[in-house]
């Protein structure tokens, strides 16, 4: 039982890193990216391919995975600079499908739909960590979660973060204030995808196997749901969202009713989350409080009139 709970925490951790990354792109910069799963895939596959074909240690490969993912973030970030809203979303969706499709078809490198099995175990100070060593993995992954959270917080609380939020609120105004919107938008993509790549690398190293259909549009939607549910633009919310969604995904299996409860219910849940949250609570469960200036001013005036 504790075993399975640790597995849950491991997945929550991995998804948290990916959703913190997406939060930078969507929550802070306002760029609707529907391809986070593709960046995770690139990180995972880079790790898998390098580790299985050379004997390089995971600790060297992981940053490479992150960097490769962020390069692909650059790849999609640049062409989409001029696109707005819906078009940007669809372009990222297309990019996600292209990545998945390339992985499936480039079998000489990625072994196609069959995926890469038997990634060597990670070596931590001489101890080999496999998928059965749940506690060490949990600690490692959550270590990364904290590092990611800290880094993202630093970015967000700095001038960079304010620039991103300015771009989100009104891109034209931001650029007329002298903010180089292109630089920051690309930067958001690169950083967000970097973290996704790290999440992917951790995933590959932990499960010791990767397959292309894991990293599909539904995974991008799932990560998106995490930040929508938690609250766009608030980092702890991204983690909270990850907790809730992963729990929702795994609960039927834990309760032993996974073959009775069809997997469709899970997905329906994600769909409902999206629709409901948009209509009723777009700021998420614990999202940012939007300061209602009009109400404050009104109160002040009423106060003065007394």
């Amino acid at each position, binding site marked *: 039982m504790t075993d399975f709970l640790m597995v849950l925490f491991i997945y929550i951790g991995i998804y948290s890193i990916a959703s913190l990354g997406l939060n930078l792109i969507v929550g802070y910069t306002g760029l*609707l990216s529907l391809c986070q799963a593709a960046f995770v895939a690139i990180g995972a596959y880079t790790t898998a391919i390098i580790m299985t074909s050379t004997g390089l240690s995971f600790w060297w490969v992981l940053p490479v995975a992150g960097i490769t993912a962020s390069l692909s973030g650059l790849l999609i970030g640049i062409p989409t600079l001029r696109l707005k809203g819906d*078009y940007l979303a669809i*372009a990222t969706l297309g990019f996600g499908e292209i990545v998945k499709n390339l992985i499936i078809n480039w079998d000489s490198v990625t072994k196609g739909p069959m995926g890469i099995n038997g990634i060597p175990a990670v070596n931590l100070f001489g101890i080999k960590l496999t998928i059965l060593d749940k506690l060490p993995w949990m600690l490692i992954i959550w270590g990364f979660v904290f590092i990611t959270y800290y880094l993202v917080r630093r970015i967000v609380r700095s001038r960079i973060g304010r620039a991103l939020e300015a771009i989100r609120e009104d891109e034209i105004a931001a650029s007329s204030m002298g903010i180089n919107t292109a630089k920051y938008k690309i930067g958001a993509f690169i950083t967000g995808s970097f973290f996704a790549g790290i999440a992917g690398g951790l995933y590959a190293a932990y499960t010791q196997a990767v397959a292309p259909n894991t990293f599909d549009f539904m995974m991008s939607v799932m990560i*998106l749901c995490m930040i*929508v549910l938690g609250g766009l633009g608030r980092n702890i919310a991204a983690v909270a969202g990850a907790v809730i969604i992963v729990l929702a995904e795994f609960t039927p299996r834990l309760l032993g009713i996974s073959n009775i409860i069809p997997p469709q219910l899970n997905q329906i849940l994600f*769909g409902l989350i999206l629709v409901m949250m948009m209509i009723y609570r777009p700021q998420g469960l614990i999202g940012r409080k939007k300061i209602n200036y009009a109400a404050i001013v009104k109160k002040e005036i009423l106060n003065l009139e007394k």
Partner: protein
Amino acid sequence: MNLFNIPANELLQHILNGLTLGAIYSLIALGYTMVYGILKFINFAHGEIFMLGAYSGYYLYYYLCTPDQGGSWVMISFILSVLFAMILSAVIGMLIERIAYRPLRRAPRLAPLLSAIGVSIILMNLAALAFGTEPKNFSYPFDNSVINMGTTSITPNQIMILAVGLIMMAGLKLFVDRTKLGKAMRATSQNQNVASLMGINVNVIISLTFAIGSALAAVAGVLIAMEYKVYPSMGQMAGLKAFIAAVVGGIGNISGAMIGGILLGLLETFGVVILGIPQGMKDTIAFSVLIIILLVKPSGILIRNIREKV
């Protein structure tokens, strides 16, 4: 003639395959383009309306007759099923608009898009729960035997898909250009506020748009179900490709949807053959076309360049 090292008869067959594939995309793209034209909004759930149309047609058809028997009752049931599918899809389309999109009309662009994605996911999974995930066979009401023209083959259903596509496009264009309602729709698409000031009930027009677009999708659904079977996820990729087709031709433009669809079908079929890449790369071609168009000529092929003023 030996173009790109493909013998002539094979080339003709590939062209036919590409045309019919393209016609399929066009049929679905019409609905997308209509809604976008009016609302400037991508109805992500359009593919699912297409799928539900296929299912409604399927169930009524198999309820009314046993298709393998043949005969005129089968043909009548088929037509009834198509009409039923159209009506049901129109209703579903209007309901979705009311419930999931109308509340978000004033919200930032992100919101209705996410909502549409949500609706799409919900509908697909509800269908899987209700109807089962296994594909169901939708028999042709007529004899779909292959017609051989030399070494090239085509089936009656493929011809029908092409014909229906053209008829629907022509019909739609006539409706939008020549009728009063069509005029109202064009007015609403140009400027909702002014249109309502002129006495047009914008909500009704919008519902009508969804209804028509959905009904057209339902027809596409039935025709395509006969070719590729009925299954819950049939709307997903088809919807995306149709959207690409609409963008390629010029989203909001009805003839654009047709041309974009055919073009996409041909590009996919020939792209794979000419480039010698594996079949599975069809999707990569389609999405690459999308990204390229969005970068180079986002208004689509048919529309003259309207630069967005700051």
